[in-house]
């Protein structure tokens, strides 16, 4: 039986501490799997790349690939950039800030093997999953956004804006080519386009602990961005 290789793409910007923690946890939880971690750093001023180079000495350069970029560019392009250097049959995308815990990686892989799905996406909104660190307002906007999306967009997944996902490499390459949005709407467009193209998508519950180090914001502009994104997706997909 041929062994599958998993390429994990992690975009980073000023994640000096978090990236080291994430890498440690990935190695801890993926011991029986063949994988590589591709870190796409956008020239972080806090020395993230220095830490990554030290991690490379520790874990090996075949396991940790540093594919940096000259300046802060978008998330979507970060995935494209990482994808060019991915040698696995599967690509996993995740955040560097520990909101996505590497302990769920085996469940993504297992789900894909069981169902032969093209995409496995993590969902925070089902039993077994969950969120910690959100106040009532944040939960309200999240739930409101979700109901809007389910009512008008019929996306086929319960968590539209999540970015903890496993793709078959060929599927990611196919879908990412047709996506034009930026920011987190990019994640929405990815999964909706994949759903429209008829790809088999499965979900696994994940828990999401909001940013342990650093801050994450949700303001009026993000809400407007979301609504614009939703309208765009209704008309364009």
């Amino acid at each position: 039986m041929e062994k599958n290789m998993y390429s994990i793409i992690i975009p980073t910007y000023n994640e000096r501490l978090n990236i080291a923690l994430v890498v440690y946890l990935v190695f801890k939880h993926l011991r029986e799997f063949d994988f590589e971690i591709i870190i796409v750093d956008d020239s972080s001023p806090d020395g993230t790349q220095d830490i990554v180079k030290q991690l490379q000495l520790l874990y090996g350069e075949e396991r940790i690939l540093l594919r940096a970029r000259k300046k802060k560019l978008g998330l979507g392009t970060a995935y494209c950039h990482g994808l060019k250097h991915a040698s696995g049959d599967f690509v996993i995308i995740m955040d560097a800030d520990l909101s996505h815990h590497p302990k769920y990686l085996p469940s993504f892989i297992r789900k894909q093997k069981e169902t032969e799905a093209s995409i496995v996406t993590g969902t925070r909104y089902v039993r077994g999953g969950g969120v910690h660190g959100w106040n009532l307002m944040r939960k309200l906007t999240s739930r409101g956004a979700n109901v809007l999306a389910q009512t008008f967009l019929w996306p086929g997944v319960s968590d539209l804006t999540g970015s903890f996902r496993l793709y078959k490499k060929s599927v990611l390459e196919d879908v990412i080519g047709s996506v034009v949005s930026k920011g987190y709407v990019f994640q929405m467009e990815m999964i909706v386009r994949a759903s429209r193209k008829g790809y088999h998508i499965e979900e696994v519950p994940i828990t999401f602990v909001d940013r342990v180090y650093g801050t994450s914001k949700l303001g009026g502009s993000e809400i407007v961005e979301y609504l614009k994104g939703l309208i765009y997706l209704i008309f364009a997909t």
Partner: protein
Amino acid sequence: MKHILKILELLVTISAIWIGLLQASIVSSSYAWLLPVYLIILLGCYGLFMVGVGLMFFPTCPQESHLLQKDIAEAKDFLKREGIDVNSD
């Protein structure tokens, strides 16, 4: 087919049923004219209901924060032993 077309298809079907009801006079005329309004109000109520239910049963995981802190401590320990200085502020 684009999603917007699916939605239009649904709206056209509903409109056809509505016009049919008006023509056939199964329902009284004044009531029938207001059906679209009732439908929209129903949709709004459904939406609010779903938001409320979702909020009530929003899955949370307070224990995860605690587990994460343990993982972070374990990771930091390891990094210290390996001489990787992350200068956590």
